[in-house]
C-alpha cells in the first residue's frame, strides 16, 4: 500500500469524526435544530467516501496505470466538485 493513502483516508475519517463530534455536541446541548442542520454533512461525507472507493476499485480492477487516459475525466470531475465546494465559501 502506498503510505500516502493512509493519511488521506485517515483524513476522510477525521472529517467524518469531526462532523460527528459537532453533531453530537449539539445533541448534548439539546440544540436539535443544529443537529438537523449538520446531519447532511455526515451523509455527504459517507457518499463521497463511497464514490471515491468505487472509482479506486474500478481503477484497480482494470489496472489503470499513472499514464492511463481514463484518469483524465475522473480528475476533471474531481476539479469540478472541488470548485463547487469552494464556491460555497463566500
Amino acid at each position, binding site marked *: *500500500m*502506498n503510505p*500516502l*493513502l493512509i493519511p*488521506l*483516508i*485517515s*483524513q*476522510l*475519517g*477525521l*472529517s*467524518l*469524526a*469531526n*462532523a*460527528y*463530534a*459537532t453533531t*453530537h*455536541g449539539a*445533541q448534548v*446541548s439539546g*440544540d*436539535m*435544530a*443544529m*443537529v438537523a*442542520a*449538520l*446531519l447532511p*454533512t*455526515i*451523509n*455527504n*461525507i*459517507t457518499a*463521497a*467516501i463511497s464514490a*471515491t*472507493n468505487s472509482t*479506486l*476499485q474500478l*481503477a*484497480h480492477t482494470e489496472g*489503470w496505470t*499513472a*499514464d492511463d487516459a481514463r*484518469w*483524465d475525466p*475522473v*480528475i476533471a470531475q*474531481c*476539479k469540478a*466538485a*472541488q470548485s463547487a*465546494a*469552494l464556491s*460555497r*465559501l463566500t
Partner: protein
Amino acid sequence: MNRLYSNTVAAFLIATAMALAACANAPQNAREDVVVAYASLTVATNAFADVHDAELARREAVKRGEVADGNSLMPDSTYKIGKQAAIDATALLDTAATAAANKDYGRAEVLITEATALINKIALYNGGKK
C-alpha cells in the same frame, strides 16, 4: 432523540468501515493519489461550509430570540483561515494534477503532501465542539 442519535452513530460506523475498506486498495500511483486528495479536500471543504452555514443559522436564531447564545461553532477568524487553506490546497492539487498528467510524478507527490497538510488543518477546524 435516541433514534436520531442511533442513526448518526450508524452513519459514522458505516462510513468508517467504508474508509477502512478503501485502505485495502493497492497499489497506488500519482494520478490515483491526486483523485484521493481531491476527494479528501472536497469532503473537508464541504464539511467546513456546512459547519459555517450552521453557525450563521445559529447566530440568526439567537438574534430572533429562539435560542440562547451559546458556544460558537466557528468564529469568524477560524472561517477566514480555513477558507484560505481551502483555496491554497485547491491550487496545490490543481498543480499536482497537471504535474501528474505530465508524468512529473515526484513533483505531484510533493504537492499532494503539501495539500494534505492544509486539508488536515481544515478538518481540525471542522471539529467545532470536539
